[in-house]
């Protein structure tokens, strides 16, 4: 590098050339360094996302089949698939409007004239869409090469010939040429604009922004079109069978429910509740609503209703809170606003409890039940793990002999091999009469239980006299054992992380609290808990998301006799894929799961913004 500068004729020009050469060389080296990792992560980490979408739009049983559109999503989620599709469209349109408004404000501030850039951006983004179409046309041809080389001597030449053939298929050629032409036209237009029409320092940003606007618009139109055709074909299918369906009213009902929930959420951040009253009220309200529901339906409750009723109850609760706040509102306007909010939320509650379940009852039962099992699993593990972990951490965070040893052992269940550890649970909680836990129960005089083979819900087993309908019987005993495994694994992990969190709380705070006369409990409540909230938030996020992704121990502890009552979302996806070989359907379910995890993460981080105290 230094040599290049030395050899250059003029020192100044040489320095410049040397610098340019050097930064180019640096970039090349960087790309070379990054390339292998990106090849692998791109192929097995990023590409799968796009590929999943592609597979999920097709009937795909081991080999690719016909194009189905959103059919498989509709099959899995019923009405909710349409709602999700339409709402995504709304979000995309919102993004477009927002982006255009931003551009407008910026241009007013700076005095630019950005709107001319809409033209080259439109052409370029059309080119990009055409390019994607080219990839979609090319893709099956490339995929089919694997079929063509079956039973033939595999050589590199053969592969390259076949690849060349795929490249020259008429459709591929035409889509490729149009995409290239339009793309080049777009770029040329952009170049021309920057030279002669609307030059300016910010033109590149406008160009990029408008390209993104058009891409969002295009995606919105495509998704909207897909969803609408899906709804139409559902109506057509129903008409053929002589049934009448009311998809639109269901979609409307669910959408209003969602809007109201978002409103509730926004309002809730402005209200202050005492934690215990909230919990008690929500639980009590939930019990009441469930009771009412049971009376009405005489025990006919499905899994999905059980998932949505709590949401309705929460909305009801908030409507009550809004009503309370309204009474104390200082101004008439505030009063009206709160009363309106309360009515809106009443509406949301009613819609969620009454309308939504019928809107999605035709969905894939295994899937909804899988989600219900996942929720059970979260409810029966995460709070217990966190409390246990915090309790043990506080005990350990004292002047104790052998602290390192305790920590070593507590962490052990977390680091072991999940298959091996779960296999012991299979032995301990086996349904054999002579199995360890059953023997222990016999010692105390309790009858044998089926444990991992027991599909019956635990509430039903606790109160055998009552005739509890299946959906209310709680997680099956088998799932409960799996929850025990989860607690066993994660309690120690939480202990270790909480210990680290406790170590970072400054001691003077405790001393100050002690001087002010705070007792142990008050110190814990007002110093330890708030200062630990980032740790608690981190652990709960990891735990909830981890639960939605969990697979290994669930698979090991799965027993046929438990009749699928332990199958969570991941297990359902794995079975659809591996056992039923429905690749397309499994992809659709996996993408829905991913969306769910994304939404959960977003809600979690919103809650964190409001509740977590970072010193």
């Amino acid at each position: 590098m230094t040599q290049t500068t030395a050899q250059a004729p003029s020192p100044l020009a040489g320095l410049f050339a040397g610098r340019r050469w050097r930064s180019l060389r640096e970039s090349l080296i960087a790309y070379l360094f990054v390339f292998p990792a990106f090849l692998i992560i791109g192929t097995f980490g990023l590409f799968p996302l796009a590929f999943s979408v592609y597979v999920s739009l097709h009937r795909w049983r081991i080999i690719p089949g016909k194009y189905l559109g959103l059919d498989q999503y509709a099959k899995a989620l019923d009405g909710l698939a349409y709602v999700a599709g339409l709402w995504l469209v709304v979000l995309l349109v919102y993004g477009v409007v927002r982006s255009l408004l931003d551009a407008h404000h910026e241009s007013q501030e700076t005095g630019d004239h950005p709107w001319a850039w809409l033209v080259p951006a439109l052409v370029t983004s059309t080119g990009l869409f055409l390019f994607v179409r080219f990839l979609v046309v090319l893709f099956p041809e490339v995929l089919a090469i694997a079929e063509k080389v079956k039973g033939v001597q595999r050589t590199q030449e053969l592969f390259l010939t076949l690849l060349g053939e795929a490249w020259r298929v008429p459709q591929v050629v035409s889509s490729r040429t149009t995409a290239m032409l339009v793309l080049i036209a777009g770029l040329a237009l952009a170049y021309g604009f920057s030279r002669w029409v609307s030059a300016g320092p910010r033109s590149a940003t406008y160009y990029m922004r408008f390209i993104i606007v058009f891409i969002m618009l295009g995606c919105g139109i495509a998704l909207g079109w897909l969803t609408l055709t899906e709804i139409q074909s559902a109506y057509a299918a129903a008409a053929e069978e002589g049934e009448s369906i009311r998809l639109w009213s269901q979609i409307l009902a669910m959408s209003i429910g969602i809007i109201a929930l978002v409103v509730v959420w926004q309002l809730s951040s402005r209200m202050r509740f005492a934690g215990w009253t909230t919990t008690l009220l929500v639980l009590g309200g939930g019990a009441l609503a469930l009771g009412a529901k049971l009376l009405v339906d005489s025990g006919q409750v499905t899994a999905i209703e059980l998932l949505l009723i709590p949401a309705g109850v929460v909305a009801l609760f908030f409507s009550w809170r809004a009503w309370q706040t309204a009474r104390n509102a200082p101004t008439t306007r505030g009063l009206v606003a709160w009363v309106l909010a309360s009515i809106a939320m009443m509406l949301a509650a009613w819609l969620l409890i009454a309308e939504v379940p019928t809107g999605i009852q035709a969905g894939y039962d295994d899937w909804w039940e899988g989600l219900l099992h996942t929720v059970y699993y979260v409810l029966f593990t995460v709070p217990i793990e966190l409390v246990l972990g915090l309790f043990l951490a506080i005990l350990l965070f004292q002047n104790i002999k052998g602290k390192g040893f305790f920590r070593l052992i507590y962490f052990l269940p977390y680091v072991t091999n999940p298959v091996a550890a779960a296999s012991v649970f299979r032995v301990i909680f086996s349904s054999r009469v002579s199995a360890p836990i059953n023997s222990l129960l016999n010692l105390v005089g309790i009858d044998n239980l089926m444990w991992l083979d027991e599909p019956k819900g635990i509430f039903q087993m606790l109160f055998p006299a009552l005739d509890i309908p299946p959906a209310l019987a709680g997680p099956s005993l088998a799932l409960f054992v799996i929850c025990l495994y989860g607690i066993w694994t994660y309690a120690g992990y939480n202990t270790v992380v909480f210990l680290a969190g406790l170590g970072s709380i400054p001691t003077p705070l405790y001393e100050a609290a002690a001087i002010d006369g705070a007792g142990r409990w008050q110190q814990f409540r007002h110093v330890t808990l708030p200062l630990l909230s980032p740790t608690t938030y981190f652990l709960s996020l990891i735990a909830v998301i981890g639960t939605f992704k969990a697979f290994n121990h669930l698979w090991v502890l799965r027993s046929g006799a438990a009749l699928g009552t332990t199958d969570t979302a991941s297990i359902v996806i794995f079975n659809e894929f591996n056992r039923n070989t429905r690749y397309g359907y499994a992809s659709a379910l996996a993408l829905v799961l991913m969306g769910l995890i994304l939404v959960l993460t977003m809600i979690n981080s919103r809650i964190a913004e409001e509740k977590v105290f970072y010193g």
Partner: protein
Amino acid sequence: MVSKGESSTLMSRAQGARVPPARTQSAKARNPRRLDVWMIFTYAVLVFGITIAILPFFWMVSTSLMTLGEATGRTFVPSVLQWGNYTEAWVDGKFSEYFANSVQIVLITVSGQIVFCTLAAYAFARIKFAGKDFLFSLLLTTLMLPEAVTWVPNFITVTWLGRIGPIPWVNNWPALTIPFMASAFNIFLLRQFFAQIPDDLWDSAQIDGAGHLRYLVQIILPISRAALTTVVIFGFIGSWNALAWPMLVTNSDEWRPISAALMHFLDEAGSYVHLQMAGAVITIAPILVTYLFAQKQFTEGIATSGLKG
């Protein structure tokens, strides 16, 4: 949960020193009875916790040394230690093969990870290039992807690659190793570490005429031993414990890794509980040994990064 007396012990802990005996004594003198009861309670709970944490492991080892009759009966400890169970699992249960498979898979995966992740992490930490931030954020999005989304597409990709390429991927080492040879998490971890290394080191290396590769290999790597150990340990554990993907891409014993093999064994040899437990002990042993030797990396690395095990 912190009393006046203990707040002083808290402070001394924060200072990283052993508690001076004088302070504890003064705390005890203030309220001797209460502290003792509290301490007894503490130890009782902690020991009970240890028992729960250990019991499954104890049961695993104990059952693995029983006869079949004892294992399915109501025995707590075997009357005669049946070491033969291990030979049976190792030889007849083919755990020797599975063990060797997993060792090979781990070696290939981890060496790939070291090479590819170090290179990428170095570029992200040290070199300026166009699109760096974009590429890095693209990389981080893969951390959000649940494994379930990748099953179907990766299975199709791997089958395709095996059909068109010179060697099959399914039921062979490539499907089990290559997809895991680079991970966004490791690149992120290493990049954070490399970014802390002072620029002076690079300047002086450059003056000595070293290029990026030489600087990376001869200077950066030797001082990054701690970070690399973490990467190796995580890679080892991830690869050793993997279940879903190996079950998808292996259906014969030839390359079946040990976790998938143990799962297979649990299904196939349903009633041979003692052999199953012997297999479980064989599967778990390398992990436990590593944990005992590199405990610090585990508790610090995992606790601070929140890696799922």
